[in-house]
């Protein structure tokens, strides 16, 4: 069955999509995909009835998916849910999601992304700190190597709750930022790659080429200056789909594959 809606979470946050689908009383399956991870949310007459991602199901899966800031989404109408795992009403779910989104804004000041790594603060807290059992479990997993996401997976908690606890532990003076794996350690694409990409694409598409390239970079939620290598092939593929002539498209892909391997 063909999808009737597709987009990227960096442009269309899940919460907004669900509000639209819910208010228009749609039924079907919303599929999300990012970095090899997948998620599904099922709606029946606008009500959220089932969701799954990784080992999470139901409400926890919806909240976890809402924390995704990037990824592709597609909506397949009329797909039936294989089961019902959500007991809250859609209004309650969306309200809670909205509340979490607001809290995320505060958490992001300390934990901007869940791929951040923290370590124990050598100076510690200046006052007495009491921890809840779950907070202690999170603290015990912090080793200067595991990211917030890794800790969430180990403890089988959702990203939001884990990030919230890390936020509390940082503000209590127990943790400090070690490194941001995503920004500081990831490999970025150099300017020579973009120059080649633009030159090859312009030869086929003409003066519109740079505009399309910038548009696709933005659709991936990135900038040319800080473009991660892990998304380079996806960028080339997305851009190549603009080339109507199949032979030209394949030749462009071949040239850029060589460039990717060489750079």
């Amino acid at each position, binding site marked *: 069955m063909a999808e009737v809606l597709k987009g990227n979470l960096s442009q269309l946050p899940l919460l907004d999509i669900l509000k639209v689908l819910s208010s228009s009383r749609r039924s079907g399956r919303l599929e999300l995909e990012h970095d*090899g991870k997948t998620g599904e949310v099922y709606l029946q007459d606008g009500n959220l009835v089932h969701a799954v991602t990784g080992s999470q199901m139901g409400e926890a899966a919806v909240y976890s998916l809402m924390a995704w800031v990037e990824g592709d989404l597609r909506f397949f109408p009329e797909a039936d849910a294989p089961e019902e795992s959500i007991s809250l009403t859609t209004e309650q779910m969306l309200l809670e999601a909205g509340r979490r989104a607001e809290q995320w804004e505060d958490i992001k000041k300390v934990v901007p992304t869940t791929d951040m790594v923290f370590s124990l603060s050598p100076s510690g807290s200046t006052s007495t700190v009491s921890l809840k059992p779950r907070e202690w479990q999170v603290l015990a997993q912090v080793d200067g190597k595991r990211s917030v996401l890794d800790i969430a997976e180990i403890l089988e908690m959702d990203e939001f709750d884990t990030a919230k606890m890390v936020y509390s532990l940082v503000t209590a003076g127990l943790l400090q930022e070690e490194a941001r794996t995503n920004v500081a350690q990831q490999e970025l694409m150099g300017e020579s790659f973009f120059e080649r990409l633009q030159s090859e694409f312009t030869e086929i598409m003409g003066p519109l080429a740079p505009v399309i390239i910038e548009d696709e970079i933005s659709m991936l939620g990135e900038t040319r200056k800080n473009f991660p290598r892990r998304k380079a092939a996806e960028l080339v593929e*997305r851009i*190549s789909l603009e080339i109507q002539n199949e032979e030209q498209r*394949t030749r462009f892909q071949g040239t850029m594959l060589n460039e990717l391997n060489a750079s």
Partner: protein
Amino acid sequence: MQAGLHQIKQVKNVYGCFLADNHGEVIAVDPPLELTGKELGLISLHVIQVLLGLETWGDPAEELDFIYQGSRLVVRDLGHSALIVICDPGLDISLLRMTMNVVSSRWEQDGKIQKELESHAVSRDVELPDIFVETNLPENGDLFIP
């Protein structure tokens, strides 16, 4: 043909790839794949039947992507044959897809390879058990309502 399979195998997180005819018989494989010819044949037979099913349904697919917990199967329909890649679920699918495009396009332009693939051309249709052949489906679509 082997060079093309090898190029696909070089994509990071690809375990192996092979080409099979429409009856699941393996035409070429890039070793080492820790699977026997029979196991590869079973995999290809299944995915080819999915391609046939979608074709019959009126929604033919050029590519199939089956994602499992610890592996992933990416299938490209080449008409007389299917190119099947066994890989890690986390592989860069764009990189793989583009490499498959480049390789299959090169095969299309290579007369020798085309001749070899044509020599393996067989129909995808398989003989179905009587129960499927003789079932009369109601036209109003209420098949499951007693």
